[in-house]
């Protein structure tokens, strides 16, 4: 029996997975947009984004727009690769069950 792949624990968290998936479909996204799409609180969202940033999966650019602070997040190449590998691992774990 072949070894089953392990799921990346950094991505496996539901909110982190949602964030990385959201960012994979856009060029970059503001903190407020990510909050609106995930329905998360500021604190939780900031903490999960920090974990993704520390893992090198997202990059952040902080700037001021009309004197208001704005944080723009972008998925990195490593993040895209990790998400792809996570999806492949998920499919392998689900095996023949996919498409049922």
């Amino acid at each position, binding site marked *: 029996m072949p070894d089953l792949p392990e799921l990346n624990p950094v991505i*496996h968290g*539901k909110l982190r*997975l*949602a964030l990385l*998936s*959201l*960012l*994979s*479909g*856009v*060029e*970059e*996204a*503001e903190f*407020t*947009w990510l909050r*609106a*799409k995930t329905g998360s609180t500021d604190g939780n969202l900031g903490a999960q984004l920090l974990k993704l940033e520390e893992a090198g999966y997202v990059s952040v650019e902080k700037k001021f727009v009309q004197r208001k602070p704005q944080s723009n997040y972008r998925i990195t190449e490593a993040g895209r690769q990790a*998400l792809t590998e996570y*999806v492949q691992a*998920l*499919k392998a*774990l*689900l095996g023949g*069950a*996919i498409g049922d």
Partner: protein
Amino acid sequence: MTEHAEELELRDRLSLIESMIAEGRRTTESWGWTFVFWGVAYYIAIAWTALYHWPWAWLVTMAGAWVVCMIIIQRKRKNQSVQRPGTTIGRAIFSVWAAMGVSMSVLLPALGFSGRFNQNIFVAVVAAMLGVANGASGMLIRWKAQISAALVWWAATVAACFGTDNQCQIVFLVAIFLCQIVFGVYAMSCEARVRKQQGALHA
């Protein structure tokens, strides 16, 4: 945790990824109104030229329409509570239309000032450019309705090259009606339907 519960959780993760990627790519911005808006602007310019024979009617109408269009877009964006992020496809479509706008604003006044302007050339050039922009947008987002609009513009380009002045004018009026007014209203109804579905999903 049972094997079945584990499998359900993994499936849940997979559907979460799919739905979030789709959510990111989904556009909530409405552009259908711009087709109707520019269609009306073309009709105003045509009527103004036909009634008063003022050579600057097109240039003035297009410049005015561009300013009004930009003001409306800015206001719509300001009213959005959350700024939507850009996508690569969105930027590609914007680039196609912006490049077409620049081409038109360079070529058409140049034709006018050089004295080499005539109605057939004007209609053929405008229709060909609108065909390019609609065709490229339609192919990028794989929207058959917009590709059909491009086909109508390209047919108008050919017709303008061979038709008489009157035929050319009629072809242009019909193409504007089909590709700007009818297509714009159709696009708006599609956008309204999508917004309704999104509203239901988030409720």
